[in-house]
């Protein structure tokens, strides 16, 4: 019972798209790849739109430009670790090169 309750807990964290090109195909791919490593369900929320974090196509259709604030939600047993890993991708600006001055 209590185990079940823990595994269904939804954790969330706000992130900002900081790389100058926004969430285009390559970072969306990195994000979805990372999300798929975890058991938890991962969703990205931007205003009224919600996307499955494990689907590159859904992530892309958020059309998130540089500066967009997103909420990452993770639901499942490894939600905390998943959020951390995904949050760090945003912090590292998806390792975009030539992006230091932006």
């Amino acid at each position, binding site marked *: 019972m209590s185990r079940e309750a823990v595994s269904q807990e939804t954790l969330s964290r706000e992130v900002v798209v900081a790389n100058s090109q926004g969430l*285009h*195909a390559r970072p969306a791919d990195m994000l979805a790849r990372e999300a798929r490593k975890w058991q938890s369900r991962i969703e990205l929320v931007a205003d009224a739109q919600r996307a499955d974090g*494990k*689907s590159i196509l859904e992530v*892309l259709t958020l059309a998130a430009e540089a500066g967009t604030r997103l909420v990452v939600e993770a639901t499942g047993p490894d939600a905390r670790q998943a959020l951390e890993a995904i949050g760090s991708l945003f912090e590292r600006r998806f390792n975009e090169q030539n992006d230091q001055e932006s």
Partner: protein
Amino acid sequence: MLKLQGIAVSPGVTIGEALVLDAEGFRIPRRFVERSAVDTELARLAAAVAEATREIERNRDAIRSELGDQYAAIFEAHLAMLHDERLQQELTSAVRDRNWWPEYAVSRTLRRYAKAFQNLDNHIAQRAHDIYDVEKSLLRALLGQRRETLASISQPVVVLAHNLTPSETANLDRRLVKGFATELGGPGSHTAIVAEGLEIPAVVGIGPFLADVSGGEPVILDGNQGVVILQPDEETIARYRQELEAAKSVAARLGALRDLPAETTDGVRVQITGNIEFPDEAEHCLARGCDGIGLYRTEFLYLTSKREPTEEDHFAAYRAVVEAMAGRPVVIRTLDLGADKMLTETRPEEERNPCLGLRSIRLSLRQLPIFRTQLRAILRASALGDVRVMFPLVSTIVELRQARMVLADVMEDLAEHGIAFNPKMPVGMMVETPAAVMMLDVFIKEVDFVSIGTNDLIQYTLAVDRGNKEVAELYNACDPAVLRLLSRSLDVAREAGVPANVCGQMSGSVMFTQLLLGLGLRQLSVPASAIPEVKQVCRSVSVADCRVIAEKALAMDGAREVKAYLRDQMRRLLAQTVA
């Protein structure tokens, strides 16, 4: 039902099955899979995914060795999209549960994703390209060599495309293509002119909408209102069918006008000539009772062929028109293209402002061999009937004199070789720039006729690019500045005793017929489709009344006022004649 508003460029209404051209001009019909074939089709889909994967991997590897990992990453992303679990589930379900043909499922599903980008600004909208790329790879793998092109259609369709080039438009099969609509394009674009010439109803400049269609569904195209209706409901279809029937009976009534002269109620004979682009349009004009061809555009010769047209190409086209006209005048306008559309190797530097650049007579005078070839053919055709030549976009007297000199030189050449032509072939110029209007009293002494091209005259007078959505509103034939220039031109021509006509969209719109007659115009050159209506108006009005209308319009301050007034006058007239 989805109603889309675009720009009406070629009149007529049509109801038919949509044929969607993808970004590469291929079509994806809406087709269904038999239940028993679902597994086979799913296997075909899986094989296509594998094939597309190999293709993308090949590209990735090639780019990686050439440019490095950073660039190859984009192909990794394409692979990820292709193998996106959601996408795969959706595709499988579309085939298994909805029995969609895999091609159709791929196109429909991926376009739904791409649609998320279409209303966003350009910078992000570009990202839809990645999704379209994946769509293309999959379709290539699915269709293999069986991709269908416009050339292979076998039943009537309404073509929906991102854009059609003038040559694609010119090559449409008129028996099967009942209309077309495009996301890009503006009024007065060459594609629009070609569509009107072909008498195919057309709407352009709709903006992004192809993500909403897949082909095969019914579509209504209203080329009068510039409206396209996707998946229309029964009621709308019924209403349009009624309209089609009504249009037929009006057409029949107007058809009765064919052999009647365009003569006003107070006995003034008006010449109504046709504007044509293709030689076989001459028949369309004759069938509607034209008095000749007032504007024969010759650009199609350059646009429909991959090579430079020869003298014989020109001559064959002109001869066909001259012979069809059987003694009626045929005014041939020399090449009116911009440098950007020419086929020559020596393409000048890209122009920042092509409308103000090297085009029309300026280009002809720069490319003398091409110009001479065309003039030779026109002169040879002049031996066969009443051919007249006209130079476009003349803005200085020097250009006119130079053009006449080249013509004289070509005449001499033909005479030397004993080739027949009419040495007295009338030579005219188009009045399309404010400069030409202001100096017309000078020009008029050196020409046999003038033709006022309102499309360009409006554009240059009001400094508006009619293809630019932001300012297209300012492009208005009713602007008092335009009316004054027209009035002045017609006065100068009348005083000099030189015939003047007006071609361009203004003369083909019945809203302006009374105004133009009132300003003193006695020759109108209009698209074939407009001949009956314009003739009908001419036969219903008196020049005396038209003068009053023109005087009132000329005294007005703004385009809006003029437009409201002319509309009102036209409605009154219609109420009288239709009743």
